[in-house]
């Protein structure tokens, strides 16, 4: 029965446990064997944690038996995977780097603990670009993750493992982190929902830092409601992260309200961007049209400084990364190249061998940009640009409730297709400004692109700490484009099983693969 769980939403699994249709132990076994089977080809996981999963499942089954389950929240019993830059006590946290290959966490990240406290079942740690530097998951020292929709293509990155695990039905939900698009872009490439909340909504404590002022943790799910429940669980002020803010919202509250009366901003300059694939452009325009048909008002807005965001990002990101990665020096933990005469030599050799090319590129860049001679030429102006971009968004959100646009200029490309770093950096042009300003953004599936037959994502951007706005609009898009889509190679068996047994496909949502253009036609 393993595959039925692969197509079930988090809510359905929780419901199934509540109504005792299956036990947490059965479900967990099935999920673990599902991961076993699917991950042979996808390689979404760097580590599966059956012991922790069984232990958590046992607690859930005890709670069901004692009647305590009903008082547990909606995530109780829901299997969850975590990006491998998140600490989970007594498991490895590798950041997909040789540097931390054998590192075992002595503590648990707040966001991970929040999900455990909510009753989630931890099934493992997912693949990523090394230290989250990348957009394809190809820089993982343990090898790339494949896109479940087409295994010759990348899943996006850096949270590619989490996105692929959700898209392939291995888990209903997962956590990722987003510094310049690392949740939204892989969500878009893999056809799932991915949320980067407003900076400060979720604690960063225990998540290995890349760019501290840019990083934000968020959920992946196959539907908007599950993603909202996940954010409900991980939001809020954490005394251990002084950049986190008070937040106690119910992001599921307005999902059924529709978008009537909402003002949705569109940025004409974005839609005319060089390099924006026609299939993506068409899909976004169709989505905008749909929202208009559903009662929203489309408002053209300008973000005049957004074009400088990539430049600012590739100053601020490397500067912070340079400093954050300085601690990986081979002395207390991590990879150590032994046998050197001096400490300096040991540092140099360990870091030269322990870090991959992209990590070293960013460390060197940050080291240069922060040097006394260059600080005022780069870091300082980048912070000024940051202020301007933040003001752009503030002005825009005086006029609109949410901004709609592309996540990426194209759909998932082939593994190994893009090797030039500067070209790769440009693929983040729509996601990076949101990290620079700190606003929230999320990726919502719009079905498949007409030309590539790969998933296209729409990006919704919200006012700072107005994350509920984008959930509301996302729910509307979901009503049009469908939810709970599992990549076809992994959905077919599940569907067969699902229709044969259990009540997994109650809402028939596993029906996958609707073309974005078809949908556009459909709404007219």
């Amino acid at each position, binding site marked *: 029965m393993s595959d039925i769980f692969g197509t079930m939403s988090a809510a359905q699994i929780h419901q199934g446990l509540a109504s005792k249709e299956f036990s947490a132990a059965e479900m967990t076994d099935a999920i673990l064997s599902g991961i076993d089977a699917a991950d042979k080809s996808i390689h979404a996981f760097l580590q599966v944690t059956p012991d922790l999963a069984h232990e958590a499942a046992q607690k859930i089954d005890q709670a069901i038996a004692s009647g305590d389950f009903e008082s547990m929240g909606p995530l109780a019993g829901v299997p969850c995977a975590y990006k491998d830059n998140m600490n989970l006590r007594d498991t490895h946290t590798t950041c997909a780097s040789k540097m*931390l290959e054998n590192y075992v966490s002595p*503590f648990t990240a707040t966001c991970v603990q929040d999900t455990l406290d909510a009753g989630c079942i931890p099934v493992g740690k997912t693949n990523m670009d090394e230290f989250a530097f990348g957009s394809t998951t190809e820089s993982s020292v343990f090898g790339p993750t494949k896109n479940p929709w087409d295994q010759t293509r990348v899943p996006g990155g850096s949270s590619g493992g989490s996105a692929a695990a959700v898209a392939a039905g291995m888990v209903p939900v997962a956590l990722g982190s987003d510094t310049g698009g690392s949740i939204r872009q892989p969500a878009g490439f893999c056809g799932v929902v991915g949320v980067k909340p407003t900076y400060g909504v979720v604690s960063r404590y225990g998540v290995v830092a890349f760019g*501290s002022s840019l990083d934000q943790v968020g959920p992946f799910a196959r539907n908007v409601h599950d993603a909202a429940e996940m954010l409900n669980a991980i939001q809020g002020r954490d005394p251990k*992260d002084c950049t986190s803010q008070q937040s106690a919202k119910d992001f599921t509250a307005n999902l059924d309200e529709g978008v009537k009366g909402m003002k949705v901003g569109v940025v004409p300059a974005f839609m005319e961007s060089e390099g924006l694939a026609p299939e993506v452009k068409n899909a976004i325009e169709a989505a905008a049209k749909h929202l208009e048909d559903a009662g929203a008002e489309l408002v053209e807005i300008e973000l005049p400084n957004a074009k400088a965001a990539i430049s600012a990002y590739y100053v601020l990101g490397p500067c912070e990364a340079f400093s954050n990665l*300085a601690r990986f*020096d081979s002395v207390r*933990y991590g990879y150590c190249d032994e046998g050197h005469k001096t400490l300096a030599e040991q540092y140099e050799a360990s870091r030269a061998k322990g870090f991959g090319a992209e990590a070293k590129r960013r460390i060197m860049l940050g080291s240069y940009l*922060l040097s006394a001679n260059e600080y005022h030429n780069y870091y300082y102006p980048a912070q000024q640009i940051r202020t301007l971009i933040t003001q752009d968004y503030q002005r825009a959100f005086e006029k609109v409730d949410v901004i709609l646009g592309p996540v990426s200029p194209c759909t998932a490309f082939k593994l190994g297709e893009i090797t030039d770093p500067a070209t790769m950096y440009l693929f983040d042009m729509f996601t990076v400004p949101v990290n620079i300003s700190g606003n929230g953004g999320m990726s919502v599936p719009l079905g498949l692109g007409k030309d590539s037959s790969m998933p296209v994502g729409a990006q919704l951007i919200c006012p700072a700490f107005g994350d509920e706005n984008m959930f509301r609009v996302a729910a509307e898009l979901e009503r049009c484009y469908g939810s709970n889509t599992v990549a076809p190679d992994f959905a077919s068996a599940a569907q067969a099983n699902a229709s044969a047994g259990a009540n997994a496909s109650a809402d028939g949502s596993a029906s996958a693969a609707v073309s974005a253009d078809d949908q556009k036609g459909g709404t007219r």
Partner: protein
Amino acid sequence: MISLEDAMKEWEPVIGLECHIELTSLDSKMFCSCKNEHGDAPNTNVCPVCLGMPGALPSPNKEAIKDIVLTGLATNCDIEKHTMFYRKGYMYPDMAKNFQITQGPKAFCMRGHLDLTIDAPAANERVDIPEAQGKDGSYTTHIGIHLIHLEEDAAKMVHVGGREGRIEGATHSIIDYNRAGTPLMELVTEPEMHTPEEARRFMEKLREIVLALGISDCSMENGSMRADGNVSLRRRGTEKLGTKTELKNINSFKNLHDGLAFEIRRQAEILNEGATVLQETRHYDPSTKHTIPMRTKETAADYRMFPDPDLAPFDLSDEFIDEVRAMLPELPDQKAERYQKDWGLSSYDARNLVKDPTITAFFEACMKQKDAQKLVKPLANLLINDVAQLGNEVEDFTLGEGPLTPERAVSLVGMVDAQDISTKQMYEVLKFIVDEDKDPATIVKEHGMKQVSDTSALGAVVDKVIADNPDKVAAYKGGKTGLLGFFMGQCMKALKGQGNPRALNELLRQKLQ
């Protein structure tokens, strides 16, 4: 080598200080909840934050912010409401993150000052006498404070096999991270001190204030208070600063004074020869009383400072600052002023009574005793001179604890005042109090120490001494009046030290005429 006095004639030293003070009274470290305690077994007060484990984040200790604002207010600083922490990058194992969290150009406290009074004879180091000179030979000078900032301390490293635990020649190093991340204040003065004595007095006064605030034990011995001193020379009458050298990690007031004095002499010799002073960091070795160059880096360090993105900028409210201001205790200067005004003490006595909170507390307890008001001057002497001497002579003596109570101290000086015992005997009685834990009156009685003031008894002794020493008497009468001391000594010897010195003195003068 040229003397300090000669060096100072031609050259004016310009001295600046950097003082580090650990906030030892705080329970937890600067950015984590680990115990703020160095004495424990190595590497026991540690956690993911102060060990720089991946994913750990700092969260500032609010009590430390209170402490530094308190210090700023007590040292006449402007409190900077909008400030932030920076990361200072350097690869060294004493900072697990390989950067230190410290502050940038804007610190919590800016633009303060302390007014120092330098007493004679130390005042004589100053060749150009400042205008504000007192009758007692002291002078007062105004020293600017550039800033006081907050940072985290580094771990303690011991280099095994190296001389004095230093790195040269060491086979390996061991690290204790208990100290890593403990709260540290750094105060930077303006370069406005001009004698080693002024530098010493600045540090002493800063210590007095911080002790009064109760935020650090300020132990130079244990390193909870440390100083770096910068000094350069310029020809008197010129403005342009010379090349400075820096003395690092000085761990006593005396070493600060002596190290700077040596540097002034060393630099003066170089300049007198027409050579140039090398800008470098030097180490003062108290055993040789010399400074030696420390290992110098080939290039100036680039710390790649930038605002720490993990720590939100501060926006201190007026309410918070007022709340801290309300916590300010009476500071040493204010106390000294009150002592002069209320009890008529001299400026010197008042200043010396407020140097150490233990002495201050004891003195104030004494003043609450009956009749203490009229004994204030001898009480001050007792505490400033005799008790200090007692502290040097008697091991484990701590003022305010044990047999010497304020009651006994007042009664002791009262006996001197009533001429029951001599001032010389007073010190003896003081020692007996500590040894025997008895009241002074009992001690005097039991030891038969009562002072002889009776003129007829004294007169007999004086007569005998005069009769026994005809040559000396002749010499005295011939003008060698300095011999009076000899006669006093002889009389006291005969009286076993119990003669009333004032009465004896008078009698001797009379009878030798």
